[in-house]
């Protein structure tokens, strides 16, 4: 009997401990879930959960076995960029041929799944719309020299620009309207700004070449759309040297990754494409065998990357980015709206106008129209399986209110899809109202047709459409358009990830149908019937108890003899 009592005691004690433990967990252990409101300074860099660590260690000697300053080929005066390239190619004999195969050079991409011809050369967007007829301006971000019009020789080896990616001095700069060249004599840009561009010490730059860096990639990719922070929302100049709170991977206080740490190159071809993305990586860690895209989160973190298995149960339907990029453009505002239809307004003297907000960001420019900027923006969410199609010259329905620049495909029943965060960029732009297609304006140039010369949309569209090879009806109107940008960068410290409550209780993903989300969803019939049943029980109790009470009063206390 005594033994038995002890056994019960132990069992009871054990269970009490379990219960108390669960209450304690409820009360205290998860205080870090509230860190969204924590001051950033208290967030310490964390041990990472990834399987591959590729960290730069500045305390060690450089990994390269070559010191370019000792090479005779580079000890000369270089008058132009192509001269430098010629010197590079004397040793790196295959480099230009490799570059010729890449998207960075061709600006052309054929989507293998949809057959669509994409790439910068073909896509029509709602920023500066399209490249054709505007080359010298746009191609200041081409990895080449002299892409000034559609007659550019894409087979030229010496016109490959090695320095724009491999400069380590920070001095190398392509001239914004130089078709990819730096300046070789002093020039002013923007015109009338007083900002002078001096010729570069190309020999010094060439002697100090090295691996790509956040700065070299960022020189173009942080300035997409014609200026700092305009385009992506998750890539802007703050990412050149990001704080740990801004990007745990790329911060010197975090993993200090360069872009190429994830966008691994092979034969100068850089992995990770927005034209053909991966909605759900089911391959996992890319070592030892890669699935061809080492830039996905799973490529390093694996398929169940979190310590909490309940969180891991989300990864089949929620992209990592959805929780780990709580907001984008966290430290520098990004462009959210661009209305071309208001462009062309001039002051009393017929001069262009530039209006700025309190922070000095341009909100109106005669050349471009009205802008809206936003900082620390909560993304939109969308089911995405990696397939993107572009509208380009596809005619849209008569009376369409908004036209998608691109469509991100996917849905809740598609096993390749997950919920992704995106930047939604909207604007108003000219369209061909006769053919119901988007239209390409000729913006940049010294000729009379260029919009930025004569401010005549009719002429600009006529010329732009001809250059794009489109059949233009001759009539134009204004249409609202939307473009979606999947977000991948600006991964916040895990303490600042989107909380469980945000979606399950506070409605962050309320627009996302097709999944059962506990807390947000329930079956109305079951719920109402259940509530009814419980009320029925309550009413039954009250009625029964009422009778007992009344009878107790009448007959004396219940149970009393």
């Amino acid at each position: 009997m005594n033994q038995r009592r002890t056994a019960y005691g132990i069992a009871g004690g054990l269970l009490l401990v379990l219960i108390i433990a669960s209450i304690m967990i409820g009360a205290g252990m998860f205080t870090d879930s509230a860190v969204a409101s924590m001051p950033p300074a208290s967030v310490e860099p964390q041990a990472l959960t990834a399987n591959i660590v590729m960290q730069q260690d500045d305390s060690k000697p450089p990994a390269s076995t070559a010191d370019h300053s000792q090479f005779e080929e580079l000890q000369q005066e270089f008058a132009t960029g192509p001269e430098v390239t010629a010197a590079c190619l004397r040793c790196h004999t295959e480099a230009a041929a490799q570059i010729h195969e890449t998207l960075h050079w061709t600006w052309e991409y054929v989507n293998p799944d949809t057959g669509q011809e994409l790439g910068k050369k073909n896509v029509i967007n709602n920023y500066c719309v399209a490249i054709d007829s505007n080359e010298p301006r746009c191609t200041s971000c081409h990895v080449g020299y002299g892409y000034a019009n559609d007659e550019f020789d894409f087979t030229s080896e010496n016109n490959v620009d090695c320095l724009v990616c491999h400069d380590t001095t920070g001095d190398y700069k392509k001239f914004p309207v130089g078709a990819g060249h730096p300046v070789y004599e002093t020039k002013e840009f923007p015109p009338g700004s007083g900002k002078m561009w001096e010729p570069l010490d190309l020999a010094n730059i060439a002697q100090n070449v090295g691996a790509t860096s956040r700065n070299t990639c960022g020189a173009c990719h942080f300035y997409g759309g014609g200026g700092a922070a305009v385009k992506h929302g998750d890539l802007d100049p703050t990412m050149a040297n990001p704080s740990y709170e801004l990007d745990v991977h790329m911060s010197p206080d975090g993993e200090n990754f360069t872009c190429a740490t994830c966008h691994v190159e092979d034969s100068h071809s850089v992995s990770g494409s927005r034209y053909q993305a991966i909605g759900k990586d089911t391959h996992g860690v890319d070592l030892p065998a890669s699935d061809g895209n080492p830039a996905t989160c799973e490529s390093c973190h694996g398929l169940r990357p979190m310590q909490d298995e309940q969180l891991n149960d989300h990864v089949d339907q929620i992209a990592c980015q959805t929780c780990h990029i709580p907001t984008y453009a966290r430290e520098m505002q990004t462009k959210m709206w661009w209305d071309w239809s208001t462009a062309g307004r001039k002051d009393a003297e017929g001069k262009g106008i530039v209006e700025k907000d309190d922070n000095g960001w341009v909100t109106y420019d005669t050349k471009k129209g009205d802008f809206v900027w936003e900082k620390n923006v909560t993304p939109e969410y969308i089911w995405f399986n990696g397939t993107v199609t572009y509208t380009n010259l596809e005619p849209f329905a008569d009376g369409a209110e908004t036209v998608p620049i691109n469509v991100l495909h996917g849905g809740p029943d598609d096993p390749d899809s997950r919920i992704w965060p995106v930047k939604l960029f909207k604007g108003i732009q000219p369209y061909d109202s006769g053919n119901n297609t988007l239209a390409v304006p000729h913006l940049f140039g010294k000729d009379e047709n260029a919009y930025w010369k004569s401010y005549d949309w009719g002429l600009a569209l006529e010329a732009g459409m001809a250059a794009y090879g489109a059949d233009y009806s001759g009539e134009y109107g204004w249409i609202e358009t939307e473009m979606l940008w999947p977000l991948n960068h600006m991964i916040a410290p895990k303490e600042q990830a989107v909380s469980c409550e945000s979606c399950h209780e506070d409605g962050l993903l309320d627009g996302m149908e097709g999944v059962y989300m506990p807390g947000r969803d329930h079956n109305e019939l079951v719920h109402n019937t259940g509530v009814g049943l419980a009320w029925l029980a309550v009413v039954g109790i009250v009625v029964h108890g009422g009778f007992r009470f009344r009878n107790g009063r009448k007959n004396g206390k219940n149970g009393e003899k």
Partner: protein
Amino acid sequence: MIENNGSQKVYVYKRYNRVWHWIQAIQIALLGITGFEIHGSFSLFGFERVTKIHDITAWSLIFMVAFTIFWYFTTGEWKHYVPSGEKASVHLRYYTLGMFKNEPHPGKNKELSRLNPLQRFTYLGFKLLIVPVMVTTGLLYMFYNDLPAFGINLSLEFVAILHTIGAFALLSFFLVHVYMTTTGQTVFTNIKAMITGYEEIEVVEPEPAAGD
């Protein structure tokens, strides 16, 4: 000598029985509160915390149930729950009519038959239906992502619906059950018995023949 108002203390609930009962009561209450927060009925702990509490409490309940089943069968306590149709109607009549006329409670909690027939049906239903349904659907819910690997293809919504139906059934049971404990000889007789183990029960002896 007629002796019909005497009472006697009878040991009705063993220690394990009592300990187990109250632990389970806390577990079910906690599961109910946290479960309905997960369901979206109110916000108390916050979603992250509440799922953790619900899951841990669920595991403690599973452990408890397993241990108790073991206890029932090694001690023979299971016999209390074997339903006997014999007197269920008497009890049904008592709760719906007799009680209001101040008739004495028809059932006596004696050592080997502490549950009256109506209670047996109800508790057996609780043990054999609601708890297993909650445990099974709860585990399906918990391991939802691993189900396809076992060849089980259910929608999460379906699992959640079953679990929610069970939860509402349990809620109603819980309410009625708590109320029913007040229908003993006095309002607190049953609750006291579940705490102390002893119940004061009337000793009703057979009426002696008239004229004796």
